[in-house]
């Protein structure tokens, strides 16, 4: 069923490649998604490590 409020028409490609992006673009998209995931994980890890460092500093000062 088509949602008329969408700006774009529904994809017309095959189920395995609905947008007809081709193998090169699909690989680039997968790599970009992977990099975003890695960057977000790194950000979480940095915030966690920083929290530990600050807590440890406070313990030393107490």
């Amino acid at each position: 069923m088509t949602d008329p409020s969408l700006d774009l028409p529904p994809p017309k490609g095959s189920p395995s490649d609905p947008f007809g992006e081709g193998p090169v673009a699909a690989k680039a998209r997968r790599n970009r998604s992977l990099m975003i995931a890695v960057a977000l994980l790194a950000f979480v890890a940095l915030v966690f490590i920083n929290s530990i460092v600050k807590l440890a500093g406070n313990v030393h000062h107490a």
Partner: protein
Amino acid sequence: MSDALAASLPNPAATDTTAKPMQISPAGFGDYLALLKPRVMSLVVFTALTGLFCADQPIHPVTAFIAILCITVGAGASGALNMAYDADIDALMKRTKNRPVPKGLISRADATGFGVVLSLFSVMLMDLAVNTLSAAILAFTIIFYGLVYTVWLKRATPQNIVIGGAAGALPPVLGWAAASGHAPLNAWLLFAIIFIWTPPHFWALSLYTTTDYAKAGVPMMPVVKGAKSTRRQIFAYSIALALLGVAPLFTGLGGPLYAVVSIIGGVAFVALALRLLLSQAGEKTPEGPQPKRETLYKVAEGAKVARDLFAVSIFYLFGLFAALLIEHGVRAAGLSGLHL
């Protein structure tokens, strides 16, 4: 449903079913990395690290790493914003036409989004992990470069890189503020050295790339005021820079190594600027012989003095900051072991 709300919704009958299919970008990791201007980032890291060491304050290595990372990412983010906005003029210049946005690999909207997200993350993490002063200076730097310089100054005035140079001069202040929580006079002295270094550096480059800038409509100094006026101004800035370069010797910031580098480097810089002043660099000359190997810009015989000054200016700044980094790095290592 009100009339206003009804009018704001799309009309199903008018939906464009012939719209082009969604464009999937072929851009990879390398293209997004190029968007961050890695070479500029490396200079930012180096000068920020120098500021961080020059503060001579103990800072946990993890905090120091996060500070440098945030400064690096923030610099990259402002580079992405710059490339997104300048795609039209980048496409017209040899040096920049292969950047990801003018090449069509990344859309302007994607580059802008990338820059904004990285800016927010870097400033937020700087505030959380380091301190509010460094986060505030980082935010100012990104806004100044991404908006004030890129959107306004670059296309409006031949003083674009003079005023805009403030953004590139702030990383040592950022590093200093990250380490100590404040920005004393010595930090601003490092800022002033890069600020005064920027015009002779970029104008020397623009003396042999004038046609490119003129084609793109960027009002660089040689395009607007001519080569002779530019050479005069380069010389004046070079004298100011050589004097400013030795100032850290009198404020306790520079030691013996810095004295040697700043004095020899300053004399060499002024000598090259004088040679440039007396030359015809940047003037229209008959086409010379073709270079033997493929180069980005064909440097006219008379403009080679400008290229020499451009090259030496990089070594000069690197030398000054490397000397400070070594002197303060050795002192920090001797004082507190693992802590910087």
